[in-house]
């Protein structure tokens, strides 16, 4: 197993290197960080040239890349062109907020998906199955910017207008050390995220349980005289949940990237907004920093998921 992990780690390093090259080229060609100053009558041509020189944009592309990579390897993600703060500091400020939002949403999503998926599978073609299926397709089809804005308009704006107790839009300045305030501000964004994700996950759980329920060993378990509940939870779910582990495992690194739309709608100071705001300004160091963290997490967690798999599923051996 250790050989396996070692081999995978080397592969991962190589993959990461390729990713950095691609990300660097993609961000470098995605826009011009000086464009925001272009129509600015206050800055003379010489000012713009000086700024370009200071940001290192006059260097050949490969020099820029190796300079960045050299520092990144040492843990220095550079300084934001725009905010003039170290990128790692900026990420450090946003990451905890994103983790709270995304992991809460993920836990709720997985719990609901399991619940709904099981009901759907066990009571196949019943009223509940149809209802859940309908809900899933609605959740799946509505773009998140629509459901997020809709939730905000109903539960914040309209509820206030109707004189009902209403939830915050997230745009007020609120006290993050007050747990009640925290939960109140978390409800709408988490609901928006969970609504969309639960829909997809529950379909997934339903399908994999249905698949497992038709297998011989389940018939054997039933023949043994086990109760339906025991068959489901002891035997079926165990195997049916395996693909879910893969999906959740692969989801986790992306959770670190935050949710651009949800964070934007609810003014949540997280990674998604950081990425989006600085991508719009073509602030390469920040965009690259965020991408590097996400891709590293993806690569590392893919290995971790594979290793965990051997524990969850004894049929799998790493070699």
């Amino acid at each position, binding site marked *: 197993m250790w050989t396996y992990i070692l081999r995978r780690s080397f592969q991962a390093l190589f993959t990461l290197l390729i990713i950095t090259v691609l990300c660097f080229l993609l961000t470098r060609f*995605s*826009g*011009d960080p000086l*464009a*925001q*100053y*272009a*129509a600015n*009558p*206050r*800055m*003379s*041509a010489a*000012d*713009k*040239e*000086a*700024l370009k020189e*200071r940001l290192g944009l006059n260097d050949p592309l490969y020099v820029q890349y190796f300079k960045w990579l050299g520092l990144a390897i040492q843990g220095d993600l550079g*300084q934001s062109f*725009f*905010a*003039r*703060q170290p990128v790692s500091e900026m990420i450090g*400020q*946003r990451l*905890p907020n994103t*983790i*709270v939002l995304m*992991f*809460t949403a*993920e*836990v709720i999503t997985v719990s609901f998906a399991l619940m709904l998926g099981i009901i759907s599978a066990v009571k196949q073609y019943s009223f509940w199955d149809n209802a859940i299926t309908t809900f899933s397709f609605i959740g799946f089809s509505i773009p998140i910017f629509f459901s997020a*804005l809709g939730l905000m*308009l109903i539960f*914040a*704006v309209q509820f*206030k207008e109707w004189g009902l107790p209403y939830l*915050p839009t*997230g*745009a*007020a*300045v609120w006290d*993050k*050390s007050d747990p009640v305030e*925290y939960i109140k501000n978390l409800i709408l964004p988490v609901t928006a995220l969970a609504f969309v994700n639960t829909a997809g996950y529950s379909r997934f759980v339903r399908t994999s349980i249905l698949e497992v329920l038709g297998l011989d060993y389940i018939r054997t378990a039933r023949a043994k005289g086990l109760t339906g509940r025991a068959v489901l*939870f*002891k035997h079926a*779910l165990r195997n049916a*949940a395996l693909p879910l582990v893969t999906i*959740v495992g692969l989801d986790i690194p992306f959770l670190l990237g935050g949710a651009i739309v949800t964070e934007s*709608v609810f*003014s949540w*100071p*997280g990674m998604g*907004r950081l990425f*989006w705001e600085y991508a719009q300004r073509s602030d390469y160091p920040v965009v690259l920093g965020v991408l590097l963290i996400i891709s590293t997490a993806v690569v590392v967690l893919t290995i971790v998921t594979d290793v965990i798999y051997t*524990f*969850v599923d*004894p049929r799998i051996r790493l070699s």
Partner: protein
Amino acid sequence: MKRNLFALLSLLVLASMVLAACGSPAATEEAPAATEAPAATEEAETEEAAAACEPAGTEPIAFPDGGKSVTGAYDQEPDAVVPYFTQMSYAVWVTQMTLVGLGEWTDEGTFIPELAVEIPSADNGGVSEDGLTITWKLKDCLFWSDGTPLTAEDVAFTWEFVMDPGNAVSTRSGYDKIASVEAVDATTVVITFSELYPAWPTLFTQGPNNAGAILPKHILEGVTAAESDPFIRMPTVGSGPFVITEWIPGDYMELLPNPNFYKGRAILDRLQIRFVADSAAALAALQTGDVDFYPNFSEGDIATLESLAPAVVLTVDPGSNFEHYFFNQGRVAGVDGRGAADNEGFCPFKDVRVRKAITLGINRQAIVDALLSGKTTVPVSQWPNSGWTNTSLTVDGYDPDAAAALLDEAGYTLGADGIRAGECDGEQVKLSFNFETTTAPIRIDIATAAQADLAKIGVEFTPIHTPAGTFFGQYVDGGPLTTGNYDMGGYTTGFYPDPYTNSYKCEEIPTAENPSGNNWYHLCDPALSDLIESSLATVDPAERKAILDEAQAYIAENYYVIMMYARANVMGSTPRFNFGPSGGDSHMFWQAETWDVTE
């Protein structure tokens, strides 16, 4: 196996709970304790002056229970608040409230003193006869928010700091024309220019399009590579009505009253600025009262805001920025060896009749009425809503018949496909060309309206909407404006508080030798170029006005640009918040000390 699965799930739950616990207040940016012991000044006069008056406090006034608090929403977070290091409006909207200058512009565009006693003029002896020396007198008993005296030394230091090659300021424009800044005594500062600089009022003064605050010598003395200094990003000592006390990136900024503000303490007890993603988030928050104001709605939002009254109060102030359409004039007149553009513009645009016909063929007033709720105007020139406007000019109204007649006269006749064609430089050319601008929704709507209008006179005008980053791309990256690779273009700009612009200067046409040139019209009309340059040869405002009047008339006669509409500041606020008089250029932030709430 079941245990494993549940262990994994519980681990997930546990992990998220732990992370949730860690996630509470995001790394709070601690306000550096910038209060140093007031520096003992060496000059005896300063000591005397300081002895005669005392600061009201040494730190921002803490927020009392039940105090008056206002929250604003900004959809862009400032990069740095110290003005010499930023070019962002949102940053200047914080600077206006925290670091003031010697003078500022009122809501009506009048230049008034701030830290100074009066505006220097030839009459009061502040402007020397040759126009090269400007003498500013500061008010007595000025203090920084930490209680240190604010003196002429700070003004002199500000200039040295800006000119220090070790500090990467965003622009030294104007400051590089100064030979010396001398603090004659604690309240008198003499600025000597090395050459005539008529825009001297824009130096060391404040306004949205020029930000020249006075900087604290006692804090910044000895600082180099200041662009990365925490104080430059977040000045915790200031001279404005408020002082920044906290700034959590991506979240909010808190400002508390400055006890030593020269006009007395602000009425509000606290001002918070919440950073939101966009104007839609700000609008929802305004409706629920989560925020009290948002300063930067688009003109396209006016109708929505009007429909939300009385819960949301709408304020629209037309300003000196303008949206204009223009013709690529590349190589039209590259005469005298000046201003040879790389790319040639669309041939028919060389004919003033074609330019005039297109101007007359767009119903600009209808666009303003329908798409901008009639809240702004079609300006006569590129100096709208300012004292520099040539008031003798009039706007050409919509006249499709006259436009058609002009095109006929120019030899462009209607073809079977409804598009005119004619001969230009010996070649058969169809009046079909591209119009390039950004992807802003209001620009898309207006370009579509213009397209429909021009189709009626047999002109095919095809809008191309490119993201701003590409549209304004640099010369080396092949940006369409800078390389002159477009037919017609449109965007917003403005020339104020000083009216000078180099965007008509032949030498400013971007080329490989001068890739950052500002003449994106690629127009070299030596008469116009020289005329505008001559406005720099005098400091006498009346003389400059006469020159600019002539330039405006010249541009109008030649139909070089189509003035679409004067850009307006569109602000939304809650009824409880009163922000007093606001004006186009000074925006709502020039008198933040008078802001109040009615509960």
